[in-house]
């Protein structure tokens, strides 16, 4: 059942007016109730107003709301144990600065709400700077459908802290901690752990450790050689990935070393000492040393799969779709730029590995099960996620390796290839957000 929230002119403060349809079903009839909207709560006096339409709840104009509850928004309502809760109220934290919320930028989010009619409630887009910590309000734009045309519109307003905040941007550690400290409610898709913490987590799982390239902190002069003796070939990756920090690949064969850098330059060295000296000059920060998985290339291109995992509205992890990303010819990693190609995951399995339908099915299920386990393991230790995208590769023996996890996946490649799936994929996280908080 949908309700609208209406301010009624009335001189008394903090009054809640209920229509007969709700009043009739309340036993005993309450004199006072706690009204809750998102994280905001207040004690209000309750009165029956028989002239109210059955789907309308009224509040006195001078109810002391520090925020707006637009009258056009269809709300759902929950009444239990002396509390009347309206919602769902969901915030999408999508920008750092308020001025970034331009009409054009908001328009992009309209697509996420194609399924709004089955969600309802107050859904707003906001920026980190729009959060008012003392008043516990957030400035932003809420979604609504125009009454006559059903056209989506974004309305500016000041809203209560939400039931659930869906993070749709990468925050700095400080920003993130600040958000965390003020939101008592649920946060979805918060920053992921660093690659090193992720490695430690996955390496301790009996289900995942054989599928995550073994990783150590490069914190002494023996580490690299130990790893090379074990695996023959390793990657050196910066602990904190930032612009300008480079990726290296080191191979050891019959006592001599080869170092490849990101630009394709190669250097041969003959002793551990030479290697350590070289690296001291090249690595300016803490690095990880990671087992290099022997990758299969296709027509000279490195490639990986992105497995797009989403939580369903029934709270289970599910694979929404898989894409295969082919890097530029001759590169040492599957990092993509203009010359990259994206294929549907199944087509890639058929084409690259010459698999028949049954083999494609089996491999895909294997990939999905592993990714499901990774998602659950991560959530268990880190918090709630509505979606995650996992980079995987298949090695020469077709074993599946998890390579990276991303919590703000981009679904643009679907926009042209499968619009129905695209809309579904955008809608699913909000459906889950509602389930998790309402």
């Amino acid at each position, binding site marked *: 059942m949908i309700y609208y929230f209406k301010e009624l002119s009335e001189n008394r403060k903090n009054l809640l007016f209920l229509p007969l349809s709700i009043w009739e079903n309340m036993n005993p009839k309450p004199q006072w109730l706690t009204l809750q909207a998102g994280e905001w709560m207040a004690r209000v006096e309750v009165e029956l107003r028989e002239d109210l339409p059955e789907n309308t709840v009224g509040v006195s104009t001078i109810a002391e709301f520090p925020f707006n509850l637009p009258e056009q928004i269809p709300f759902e309502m929950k009444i239990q144990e002396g509390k009347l809760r309206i919602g769902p109220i969901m915030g999408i934290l999508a920008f750092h600065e308020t001025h970034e919320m331009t009409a054009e930028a908001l328009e992009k989010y309209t697509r996420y709400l194609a399924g709004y009619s*089955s969600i309802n409630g107050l859904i707003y887009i906001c920026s980190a700077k729009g959060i008012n910590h003392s008043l516990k309000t957030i400035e932003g734009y809420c979604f609504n459908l125009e009454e006559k045309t059903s056209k989506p519109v974004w309305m500016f307003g000041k809203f209560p802290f939400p039931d659930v905040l869906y993070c749709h941007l990468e925050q700095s550690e400080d920003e993130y901690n600040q958000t965390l400290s003020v939101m008592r409610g649920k946060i979805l898709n918060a920053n992921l752990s660093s690659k090193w913490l992720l490695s430690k987590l996955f390496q301790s799982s009996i289900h995942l450790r054989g599928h995550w390239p073994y990783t150590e902190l490069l914190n002494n002069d023996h580490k690299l050689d130990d790893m090379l003796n074990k695996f023959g070939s390793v990657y050196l990756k910066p602990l904190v990935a930032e612009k300008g920090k480079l990726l290296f690949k080191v191979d050891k064969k019959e006592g001599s070393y080869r170092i490849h850098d990101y630009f394709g330059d190669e250097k041969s060295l003959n002793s551990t000492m030479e290697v350590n000296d070289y690296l001291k000059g090249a690595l300016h920060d803490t690095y990880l040393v990671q087992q290099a998985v022997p990758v299969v290339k296709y027509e000279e291109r490195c490639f990986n799969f992105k497995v797009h995992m989403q939580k369903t509205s029934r709270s289970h992890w599910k694979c929404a779709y898989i894409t295969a990303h082919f890097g530029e010819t001759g590169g040492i990693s599957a990092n993509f730029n203009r010359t990259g190609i994206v294929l549907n995951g199944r087509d890639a399995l058929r084409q690259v590995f010459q698999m028949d339908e049954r083999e494609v099915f089996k491999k895909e299920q294997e990939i999905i099960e592993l990714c499901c386990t990774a998602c659950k393991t991560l959530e268990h230790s880190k918090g709630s996620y509505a979606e995650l995208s996992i980079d995987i590769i298949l090695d020469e023996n077709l074993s599946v390796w998890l390579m990276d996890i991303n919590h703000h996946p981009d679904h643009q490649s679907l926009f042209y290839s499968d619009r129905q799936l695209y809309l579904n994929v955008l809608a699913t996280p909000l459906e889950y957000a509602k389930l998790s908080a309402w």
Partner: protein
Amino acid sequence: MMRMNKIIPDLHANNCLTIHPDVAKYHNLSTAKKWFLRFGNQALEMKLKTSSVLTEDEIKLSASIIDLLSIPINCRFEIRRENNEILLGPFIGILVGANKSYLDESVQYLSNYLYDYEHIGGAVIAFSLEGIDPLRYTIEGYLYSPETEKWEPGIFPYPASVFKIIYLNREWRNHFQTVFGHRYFNSYVFNKWEMYKWLSQNSQLNSFLPKTVIYYAPQDIENLLNEHNEIFIKPVHGSMGERIYRVKKTQGSSLQLEFQQAGEPQKSNFSSVHELGVFLKKQFKGKTFILQQSLDLITYQEKKIDFRIVMVKNQSGDWEDMCMVAKYGREGSIVTNILAGGTAEVGEITLQKVFGFSEEEAFRFRKEISRISYEAARCIEECGVHCGNLGIDIAIDTAKKVWIIEINNVNPSPLFALDINDRQLFYQIKRSNMLYAKNLAGFPEKMT
């Protein structure tokens, strides 16, 4: 994801199950406690041990236990703790038919249920009613061998759960309920009238049901024809577009009947409902039939269209809406069944084609159909039928109103996925059936 374990017969220790210490820790199994080992519907008291000599994927089991519980050691198993029992499984049965001869012929076609044996695992047997010995609690049938990927004949104990794809009489239903309780699914095959009665009680669904009455006397036809210009007459039990008649009043007071015979459209005229009643009695040979309001179905190039929603339960026991397939009838035909000569298409495409919907509109319309389907599935189960897959037939009229026409639950065909050329979906539906059976066998999806 769970690990599948290989069983190594233990020829030395008696009555022992030995596992790797990490596995014991993972499942919170203490060797100091008393345990039963359960396989299917049998359990045996035994001693749990741990040994680091084993890998995490190996289980050592005393030969005596393997014999007593009839554990097929070429299968790979998961273990799971449940109270004071350690379950070895899953042990799943597929009840395929009434007779052994039918089973013998059809068993080879069941292999595609097990294409993802890696995640289903355990022992899967296929059997017929004839192969069941309810006194000895044994079943003669076939066991799937993951090594050869073939079905091997044998005599087996009762499994832990049963996936049933045939109709059962009341006596058998009682037997299955007694032995398996909630652990067998597609428990009861309901007919069109039962479906109507159940769903029409639900305030969220009754507006999606075309008016339906059961036929007792010719007057019933008259009454419904007074409300609706055109009605359908269908057998309460039939499926696949069999014996469906359309009746309408023509000028004067005569009635026109349209139906399909040997694939060809036929027409007959009757001067009164009584005359029609006599004809129907002969046609239905005393079997019950229903009268149903006819709908002004959407058409494309004069072909009638309705939709099949394939609903399947997954390993968590939740329904999943797998696909919507549009079924096109033959030009001028009164039914849309694909077997009756129609063709199929991905439903979302049809919605856009017929209504000129934008992508967003098609998406929202499809979502609403999905919502109705979930509600219908929930409602059917609330009425006491334990289902694992349902085929929901949905119609849309020219005013864009959605109608629930029929729900199939004997063994709704996953072949619809092939009609839209989606073999991967076909495999997924079959996989989900097995994973739900796995859930019922005591191995639900793990949350962490």
